[in-house]
């Protein structure tokens, strides 16, 4: 995975993401170990331990039907996980040019 998708700062928090194999749609690793299409269902991990989580999820990706597992740093100031980069906010909430494709009906109105 591109290094820019793995920007994480010590002491921060991240969620784990991938694309679903069957349709390519973006998914997030949820509390129960399942993959959800909604970032607000994602489990939040401390950056200190996330590499191990990513390793485990990567080993399971064929069985889980996902591809391209990596971690996404999120901001600290929201109850719903919000990625810190615009790229990952677009992945999380949908293309900004098609609001009707938003992945969360109550997601942030502007990815910036």
């Amino acid at each position, binding site marked *: 995975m591109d290094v820019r998708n793995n920007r994480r700062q010590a002491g921060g928090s991240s969620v784990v993401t991938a694309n679903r194999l069957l349709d390519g749609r973006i998914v997030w690793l949820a509390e129960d170990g399942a993959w959800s299409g909604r970032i607000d269902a994602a489990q939040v991990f401390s950056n200190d331990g996330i590499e191990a989580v990513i390793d485990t999820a990567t080993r399971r990706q064929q069985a889980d039907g996902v591809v391209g597992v990596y971690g996404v740093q999120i901001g600290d100031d929201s109850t719903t996980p919000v990625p810190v980069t615009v*790229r990952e906010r677009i992945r999380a909430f949908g293309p900004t040019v098609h609001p009707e494709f938003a992945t969360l009906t109550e997601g942030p109105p502007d990815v910036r």
Partner: protein
Amino acid sequence: MSAEILATPDTGAAPVGHYAYDQVDRAFLHDRVEQFRDQVARRLSGALSEDEFKPLRLMNGLYLQLHAYMLRVAIPYGILDSRQMRELAHIARTYDRDYGHFTTRQNIQFNWIRLEDTPDILARLAAVDMHAIQTSGNCIRNITCDQFAGAAVDELLDPRVHAEILRQWSTLHPEFSFLPRKFKIAISGSPNDRVAARFHDIGLVAKPGRHGTVFDVFVGGGMGRTPVVGVHLRDNLPEEDLLAYLEAMVRVYNEYGRRDNIYKARIKILVQALSAEGYREKVDAEFAAMDRARYRLPPETVAAIRARFGTPVLDAPSDAADRLAEARRTDALFDRWVRTNTHPHRAAGYISAVVSLKPDGGIPGDATSAQIDAIADIADRFSFGEIRISHMQNIVLGHVRQDQLHALWQELGRAGLASANIGLIGDIIACPGLDYCSLANARSIPIAQKLSARFANPALQERIGDLQIKISGCINACGHHHAGHIGILGVDKKGEEFFQLTLGGSAGNDAAIGQILGPALPEDATVDAIAHLVDAYLVHRTDGERFLDTYRRLGAALFKDAVYALA
């Protein structure tokens, strides 16, 4: 090139404007679809890992982008027929989110494709003689062509038959399927470059010679991280040597091109490293040593391929031009559209119409399935069922009777396709950008939409005149920003979007690379900056001067002040 072409009889009327497939072509496509169906099944079962499957799906035009799989479908030399167009509409409606995106390579992309649907989609495409082969990977990609080929009044020679010959030569070419990097060829038959020949790995300009068709050859142009205007390699390449010489050119690249650094792997870097003369010497040596008889392109083969193209019967009534003039006198909106959205035709009573895919505030190059169907219907009614995609992300109907142009325009209006902005500030090229593309650093489309909305007034657009804005969401330059009169490049600064302006680029005969104006700006400031640039141009231009001319005459300082002095 398959010898079977010569042995296969026609089974029906050939489509106007493009080559009619034969049984060999169709059998091959069928086998290829079934091969991919098996590969997908093995991927889903886990028999193939993602690393093993990725090159296989890319060979079939299937990318994994930001939100979903994206399927890029080839439209050879940008020309398709209404039957094929309707199939694209069906795919958009059935397998995607009801729209498609026409690209700067004259192809179409679908952004929301499911992997498990892809074999069925490819089978549907194959049923109308289409595919997605070589729309990805380090091979020779879709051959692009003048959108007014075979119609333009300024054309010296219709280049589409030779584009088809190059398509056949390059398709699954065993020696050129794993080049150091992707390879793009454009061909034109007009002295006025509308294909950006000087910005391609190989650019060809066909023209009549003393003893038949000849080609001027450009090499080593390109955009991307290292923009280069191609060098003129040779004049008057005889038609019979076209394939041999291109074979030699690509062989030299294949042998000496760098494979150790993806950013230095394009042929432009090799031509710079060897110098134009050094590259030419190696090509000439290869050309001299090769079995020329094997690669000779005989006139009989050219004629056989030409025979598989349908030819329009151009028989407009003698008063067609008068009737168009009358319609223009009585309908001011139509008159404005004709001024901006048509191109002179070689045949009396005919004209080429450009359908803008750049509505006010819209997404450049996008069309809904209903619009794609409408264009197919309109092409059937007005232009022999022939449809062309331009590298400017618009649609061209090549052969329209002048007395029918007003009716065509009314039909376009009903489909929401009558924007009168071709060549103007609203006719923006934009790549998909960060809204879709996994390589992008910044979004391209929202800036295009904001600019399009800001300059929506058609009278203002006409007053500003010829001004090409081109937007890329990353340095790969799919939006051709280097060649924009005003170029916009999205950059990533610590995870946030900024936009760098370049001025002075051109893709035409006066090909030039735009120069960076100053520090990158946030999105809204970028839109304001463009408005300041336009204001400065309107104040300082002389009569008839394009934005590009004013920039070249006065230099960057004036425009730099217009953007940054108030900051």
